[in-house]
């Protein structure tokens, strides 16, 4: 028998503090699929908040730390497209000044995948046994879609759940208005973008809007609960993970 796939979980700051249930669902799912899951405990955040606001040097310090923490992991799985994008496309440039770190960053970039990509590309899975039922719609997170070029894997996985009916979200590829610190720097603009997104979500008649990014889930979930909507914002891992969060 082939030796099991081993993967380290990069939980992300938002995932750790605000959405632990996503991480738990992810661990259960991966184990069910035969993956040996590690969790390097020194991890904090990928540094994207610093990077996006222009604090490049500070982000590089965080990147250097993260690169070392995950040095030995054969695979790194991230439940957020934006954090995976940060590691894969920005870390090498951030650590350019130090050849050893740069090499480690290049290596980490190759080993890191967003959850849906890991499931489809590494494990080769698209049919997952889950009790989750009902009509759902999918929101493309900007960094997963345009940054990592991924729109097929999450949809394939959702279609692969027997009880799930996936309906396309009009304007699925449009930003939800989160944008990290953008959401508090320009809260009115951010909320106006969100309102349009949520109106589209509600018009689909889906019971859940699924996304692969903690930022989008915080934004859409926060808007949905404020407007008293019956629709829930859930992470792909929760749909696949065998629990029904909604």
């Amino acid at each position, binding site marked *: 028998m082939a030796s099991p796939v081993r993967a380290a979980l990069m*939980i992300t*700051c938002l*995932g*750790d*503090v*605000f*959405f*632990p*249930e996503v*991480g*738990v669902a992810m*661990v259960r799912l991966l184990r069910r699929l035969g993956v040996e899951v590690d*969790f390097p*405990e*020194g*991890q*904090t*955040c990928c540094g994207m*908040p*610093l*990077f*996006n*606001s*222009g*604090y*490049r040097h*500070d982000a590089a*310090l*965080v990147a250097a*730390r993260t690169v070392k923490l995950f040095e030995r992991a054969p695979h790194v799985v991230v439940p957020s497209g934006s954090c995976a994008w940060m590691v894969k496309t920005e870390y090498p440039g951030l650590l350019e000044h130090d050849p050893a770190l740069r090499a480690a960053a290049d290596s980490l970039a190759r080993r890191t995948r967003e959850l849906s990509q890991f499931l489809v590309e590494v494990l080769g899975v698209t049919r997952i046994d889950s009790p989750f039922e009902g009509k759902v719609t999918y929101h493309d997170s*900007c*960094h997963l879609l*345009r*940054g990592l070029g991924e729109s097929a894997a999450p949809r394939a996985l959702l279609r692969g759940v027997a009880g799930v009916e996936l309906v396309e979200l009009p304007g699925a*590829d*449009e*930003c939800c*208005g*989160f*944008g*990290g*610190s*953008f*959401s*508090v*720097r*320009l*809260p*009115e*603009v951010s*909320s*106006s*973008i969100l309102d349009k997104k949520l109106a589209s979500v509600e018009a689909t008649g889906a019971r859940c809007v699924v996304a692969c990014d903690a930022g989008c889930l*915080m*934004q859409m*979930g*926060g*808007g949905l*609960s*404020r407007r008293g909507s019956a629709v829930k914002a859930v992470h792909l891992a929760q749909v696949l993970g065998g629990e029904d969060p909604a």
Partner: protein
Amino acid sequence: MSDAALRTPFPERAGAALKDAFLQEALKIATTKFIDLRRESFAGFPQGEALRDRARAIKEATLQRLDVHLERLADNVERLGGHVHWATTAEEARELVLRLCRERGVRMAVKSKSMATEEIDLNEALERAGVTPVETDLGEYIIQLAHEKPSHIIAPAIHKTKGQVAELFSRELRGEFPADPEVLTAVARKALREKFLQADMGITGANFAVADTGTVVLVTNEGNGRMVTSLPRIHVALMGVEKVIPSMSDLVVFLAILARSATGQKLSSYTTLVRGPRRAGELEGPEEFHLILLDNGRSRQIGSTLREALYCLRCGACLNVCPVYRQIGGHAYGHTYPGPIGILLTAMLKGNGAVRELAHASSLCGACKDVCPVRIDIPRMLVELREHLDREKIAPWTERMLFKAVRRLLLSPAAFRLSAALGRRLQRPFVRQGRLRGLPLVLGRWTRTRDLPPVAARTFRERWKELR
């Protein structure tokens, strides 16, 4: 926008735009239409992607030898009997036009749509000098009548609904006009015909200028550009120096993607190629042709962070897809060039201090980069611009302190854990039905319109132990 209006902070300008129901309606209809047209156009044009790469490569290469191409352009324009003027600053460019007006006794100038003339505030300068500028592009005509500025690079009156235009025309042109675009266009056409015949000078911008042949290229849809360049006795074209391209075969590449990106057309209705003034034996065309090459801060960016912004074709595609532009429109940005590319161009023309707030007017969603015909990496450049704001201490010190604190938190797992525990205690008074509401300080900006999930009773890190 006037300096006084710019003193209103950007978030307030944006907030006012969000409350403007007419603007919201107009923006939604127009940007959605542009997005769909562009998408359909490229969907039926498989070679488009390769042409975009090619166009980008041409811009890149041309900028590396900009001086050579400009000299060649100037030589060829002069060989055709035209005059070439170099303007380092906006003021120099204005003065060049005003001098021509004075020396040639110009009383009225008709204009075709040009962002470069907006950039140098030419209309105001002409008016002060007693020359009447008349905008002849329908959108520009509308906003000139309304005493406003363009709010979109290619659709200057995008912020107005047809009802508002009918009201404006009825008031300014004295009549009772219905909110019917065809009727309103006919009204404008009739009013403008006389101006074309009266004007002594025609003023245009340039979409491209071909160095090899001395050709100035105008891409328009209304036919007014052609009359501006051929009816008055003097034609003045004002172009940013980055608009030069080496050859006619390069022009073909750009023409194939420009209109598709802007309006979804294969080609615009008119592509006008101007080569100098009327020559002996020709029946039409101006007696004099002047080309003004405007630098205004451009050439010093060739070696800098903002270099890629010089590739911009001014198609407006990045505005249409930008979630921020789609909410607030162009005027709230407060400068000549709105939208994501406008932030970069404003930094280029007016310095980093001018974009302290605007540099953050983007969620970095990347939609702009995706549609840009020359693939300008606008999100990356915005992040780089933000770096400059930090390094040059233009960003507020409170913000810089806050991010230094964030850095410390992210570099120490112990501090990170502690802050989660602290958050859990501090959030208690704000938890309503499992959600956070009415948070103070900066977090209040979130909770005014959205709920926040509370810090979990047990973080993932704490739950991991039992998952093991």
